[in-house]
């Protein structure tokens, strides 16, 4: 009797790759090389008399557990050497988080601290951030940091968290400072993420729009720009996941596996 669900090796390998690919520890090239290893291993096991399904099972066990593979690959693929979308993602996500937190700190310290002291918390935060980034850069891992930071290992979770944090908190400092927010050195220095907001200020300075509108429109534009960049870099990162979703709707192609 014929099996109604014949084992599809290409499909099994693709799913196996996809599972590993969710981790930033693996580059596309690594996944292809591991898949090539699996194929060779399956071939050999089949020659020894195993069925294809069984051979795949044994081969994927022999190649190693996901966790230990991830650890070893992460050692040679630190995120800073990752592919461009990954680096872009983390640059924007980092700037975004910093922007949100610094606005909150600035707003709170302006509201509760006397003038000469109000800059201290923001400056301390800047220094601490630089130190943390320097340690992260040199060690290439989050080891030694709070396990809580591991949520940032997953781009989708991190993005959702940042969006919620950003949308929720970015208006708070303005409420606290009573909508007087004039540009200062810290906010101007933030570059990319701040660009739409700074353009808003320029429009105000040249007398095109009112300050309140400039501030509000600037915030909205910043939120939109950041979300667009984050989501598009995430989609770039997750191209494989996107393909899988399309494949589910249409029957999987029976062509030979490539790349």
């Amino acid at each position, binding site marked *: 009797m014929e099996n109604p669900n014949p084992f599809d090796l290409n499909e099994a390998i693709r799913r196996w790759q996809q599972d590993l690919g969710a981790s930033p520890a693996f580059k596309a*090239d*690594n996944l*292809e*090389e*591991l898949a*090539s*290893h699996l*194929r*060779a*291993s399956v*071939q*050999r096991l089949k020659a020894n008399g195993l069925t294809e399904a069984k051979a795949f099972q044994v081969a994927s066990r*022999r*190649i*190693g557990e996901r966790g*230990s*593979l991830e650890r*070893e*690959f992460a*050692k*040679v*693929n630190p995120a800073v050497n990752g592919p461009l979308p990954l680096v872009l993602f983390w640059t924007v996500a980092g700037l975004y988080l910093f922007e949100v937190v610094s606005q909150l700190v600035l707003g709170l310290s302006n509201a509760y601290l006397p003038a000469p002291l109000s800059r201290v918390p923001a400056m301390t935060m800047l220094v601490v951030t630089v130190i943390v980034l320097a340690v992260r850069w040199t060690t290439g891992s989050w080891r030694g940091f709070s396990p809580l930071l591991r949520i940032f290992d997953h781009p989708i979770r991190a993005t959702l968290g940042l969006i919620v944090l950003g949308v929720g908190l970015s208006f708070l400092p303005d409420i606290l400072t009573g909508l007087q927010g004039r540009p200062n050195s810290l906010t101007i220095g933030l570059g990319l993420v701040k660009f739409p907001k700074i353009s808003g200020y320029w429009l105000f300075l040249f007398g095109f729009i009112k300050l309140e509108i400039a501030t509000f429109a600037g915030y909205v534009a910043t939120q939109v720009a950041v979300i667009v960049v984050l989501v598009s870099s995430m989609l770039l990162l997750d191209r494989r996941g996107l393909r899988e979703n399309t494949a589910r709707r249409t029957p999987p192609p029976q062509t*030979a*596996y*490539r*790349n």
Partner: protein
Amino acid sequence: MLSKELVAASTTTLVLSILSEGENYGYALIQRVNELSAGQVHWSEGMLYPVLHWMEKEDLIESEWREAESGHRRKYYRLRQKGRKALNTEKEQWMAVHTTLKKLWKTQTLLT
């Protein structure tokens, strides 16, 4: 079977030595080690690749994707000049350990 520590210490030397026979790909490297050591040197299969990538970063070896007979792509590794030099140094060091132990164990067998 070799201890974890010895496996870790000898992997680079073994890879360099096998590649000095000619270029090869990951799965075949593992097969070759298995066959030569009669299963005594056991590599966790997936773990070999990060080692190979590290060796490539260190310019000891280089790699190239090529089409295999099966039609699928395979990544082949081969030695570079720096790798050849490293292999010579490694050889001297391992031979030093080998001859020392051999002499020691020879006298011990004579004594017992």
